[in-house]
């Protein structure tokens, strides 16, 4: 890898003919570095796939619908070795394309997509080859959307806050308090809607703590986020130990959301169970993506919010109240993280246990940065993470030769690769994390 950055910059000299002008010269140092590291990374993965080729035997089968579906779709059978080999070649070609630097316009994006798909398909073909059970594609996709739900909501919370210039490392803490509030309220009232309302309220309250200390008291926002996470862990843990634990039948047995199939749409083969046979929280998450996009890019408030995050002084000069807009942004973000927190209790298992969000808030934060502070991209990154988590748990049932602990590490390794290799230096909103004082 170290050789990749050793390329001498090609300086145009007097002898160069104008028509021989090399366009790579116009590529910035950072862009070239990002391109080369992406290329090397894709090549390395391609080589790994080529190695896997030698351990592939038999036929890989992918079941498009699960065994209980009314309309049975065919199970696709692919020759294992051929598929892996083909994917490895595609990967190597894409990597070579990146390294050559001759990809222009949309070509790098397409090459990146091809490489990503090839890696996924190749790896799955290798894992499923020669197994008794087919790889359940429908489960995989439905599980992806389900697992990604809190991540999408958390990422949207981060996007709204950070576009206004308030870094939100406290998503984890907001999740945890909201999850606790939802379980407690749900257990007492036995109502999902009351639980959701309590979760949103808890998320907004934690967001208010963040806003108060970040905007009014100008505390370093990353530090603040870490402290709020600790506070949330301590508060929920203490209340759980002191109040809930001794009385868990009354206070910790919340209702669990059931999947609500949408009439007609849920009957579409493959797509129906994935998108239209989910819980209300999943629908809310998908709707939230559109809402946040619309708020940020199609309303006056969103324009002001982005202005405050990029250049607060300019916004202030034209009469926008920087602090008010930031307060609003952080509180609106709290709504989404509150909904996301509800997922961990009433959205999935009903009961609360200490620190049950296990770092999902941080992964949502990673999705914000990987998604370049854009709601749709950030949600896509959350889905990517959900996909890898779901794949790891699906593969465990297939008895792959890889130890299960390594499969569970897969999402985290994939995130590092995505952050380091494919995304590289990202630029957030210019005033992100900078308190504003007149």
């Amino acid at each position, binding site marked *: *890898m170290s050789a990749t*950055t050793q390329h001498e910059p090609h300086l145009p000299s007097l002898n160069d003919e104008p028509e021989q002008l090399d366009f790579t010269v116009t590529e910035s140092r*950072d862009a070239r*570095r*990002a391109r080369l*590291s992406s290329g090397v990374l894709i090549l390395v993965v391609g080589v790994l796939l080529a190695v896997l080729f030698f351990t592939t035997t038999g036929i890989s089968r992918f079941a498009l619908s699960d065994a209980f579906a009314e309309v049975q779709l065919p199970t696709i059978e692919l020759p294992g070795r051929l598929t892996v080999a083909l994917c490895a070649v595609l990967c190597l070609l894409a990597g070579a394309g990146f390294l050559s630097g001759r990809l222009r316009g949309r070509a790098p994006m397409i090459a990146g997509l091809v490489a990503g798909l090839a890696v996924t398909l190749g790896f799955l073909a290798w894992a499923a080859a020669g197994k008794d059970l087919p790889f359940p594609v429908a489960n995989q996709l439905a599980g992806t959307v389900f697992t990604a739900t809190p991540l999408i909501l958390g990422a949207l919370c981060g996007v709204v806050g950070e576009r206004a210039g308030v870094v939100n*490392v406290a998503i984890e803490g907001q999740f945890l308090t909201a999850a606790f509030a939802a379980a407690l309220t749900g257990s007492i009232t036995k109502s999902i809607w009351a639980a959701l309302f309590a979760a949103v309220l808890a998320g907004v309250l934690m967001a208010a703590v963040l806003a108060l*200390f970040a905007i*009014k*008291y*100008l*505390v*370093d926002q*990353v*530090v*603040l986020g*870490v*402290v*709020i996470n*600790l*506070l949330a*862990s*301590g*508060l929920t*843990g*203490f*209340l*759980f*130990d*002191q*109040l809930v634990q001794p009385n868990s039948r009354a206070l910790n047995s919340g209702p669990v959301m059931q999947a609500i199939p949408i009439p007609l749409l849920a009957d579409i083969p493959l797509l129906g169970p994935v998108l239209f046979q989910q819980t209300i929280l999943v629908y809310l998450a998908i709707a939230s993506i559109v809402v946040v996009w619309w708020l940020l890019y199609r309303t006056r408030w969103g324009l002001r919010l982005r202005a405050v995050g990029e250049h607060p002084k300019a916004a202030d000069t034209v009469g926008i109240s920087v602090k008010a807009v930031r307060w609003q942004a952080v509180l609106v973000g709290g709504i989404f993280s509150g909904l996301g927190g509800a997922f961990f209790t009433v959205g999935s298992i009903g009961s609360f246990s*200490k620190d049950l969000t296990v*770092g999902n808030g*941080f*992964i949502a*934060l*990673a999705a914000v*940065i*990987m998604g370049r502070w854009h709601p749709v991209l950030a949600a896509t990154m959350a889905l990517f993470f959900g996909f890898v988590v779901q794949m790891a748990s699906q593969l465990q049932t297939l008895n792959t030769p890889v*130890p299960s*602990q*390594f499969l*569970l*590490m897969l999402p*985290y*390794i994939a*995130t*590092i690769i995505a*952050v*380091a*290799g494919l*995304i*590289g*230096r*990202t630029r957030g909103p210019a005033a992100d994390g900078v308190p504003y004082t007149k």
Partner: protein
Amino acid sequence: MTTANARADRFTQWARGRWREWAITLAAFVLALLVGAILMCAADPDVAGQFAYLFTAPALPLGAAWAKVSTAYSALLAGAVGSPTALAATSAAAAPLICAGLAVGLAFRAGLFNIGAQGQAIVGSIAAAWVGFALPLPPVIHLVVAVLAGLLAGGVWGGVVGWLKARTGAHEVIVTIMMNYIAGGVLAWVLTTDAFQRPGRDDPISPEVPASAAFPRLYEQLHLGFFVAILAAVAVAWLLDRSVLGFSIRAVGANPHAAGTAGMNVSATTIITMATAGALAGLAGVMAALGPSVNGVPVPLTEGLVGTVGFDAITVALLGRSRPLGIVLAGLLFGGLNSGGLAMQSVAQTPLTLTLVLQALVVLFVAAPQLVATLVPFLNARKAKVSLTGADA
């Protein structure tokens, strides 16, 4: 004369600033204890129920609240500093906190946010424990090799983050978080392999580390590791204030562009800082793996061996304002809260999690001197400038 006067003035100013810092920290601690007391009473149905009589018979609720709070806090105090045994327990709890706090603080000074002390401590504990139970070495050498192995493992784990940051620009916050999970996964995996799993056991637990690789005990729970931690703090202080590397760490932390323009190698500084920070956090893992527990022998490697030291370390570094001496004091304070919290849990039946709330509140109040000034007006804390990360110091 004028220079002497100016110097005296500067000293007065400095002393006043320091006094204010101390006063704020003290006020923050008192405020945190107050909020903790309110929380304790509100969460106890017996005490909270008495408050219905607040206006008819005020002695009832106030007496109940006072009894509740004073029992809990006196148990906390006694468990932290009440006896030589308690002090020794505090020192044992503080040692890993100090090391990991230094790991976070050192990275702060270079402008890097090292959330990965947890993962670095985990790999440090894996390496140290393995050398401890697998290699048959003579007494002193065994301990030294085990400590070095832990330092090296942590250093590599942190160095990878620095390398990725310097080479690809990957955000260190994300990478360290992910490296924490990966370290946890590696630990879970090695404990299932023949090299690590105790023979004849099915659960993930390693063989015991023999006495030859353990930190020798000096008095009750006080062991050599505590002095190693203090030594590490002195070394970091020297590194930051007296060495060329420390100067470039602080310069990069203050302004990487200016440091780069001035000819410093920002990439190399980033990598070295993260590797050093990783080694320090690895040392915290070493303390967990080789430090004797209450029964005199080190706890064998399990999945929860290092606890949450890497995350507690962030608050230690913040409260210590990323300065080595401050980190030692903050580590002792939180070590005391930990060991006292255990006593509070067993004596006063107040959950240990209360100490987490206290830790968070202390740092929150310290970070917001204006709030402290509003609540405690005579402190004149409004003028105080607080930089918890010390990055611009």
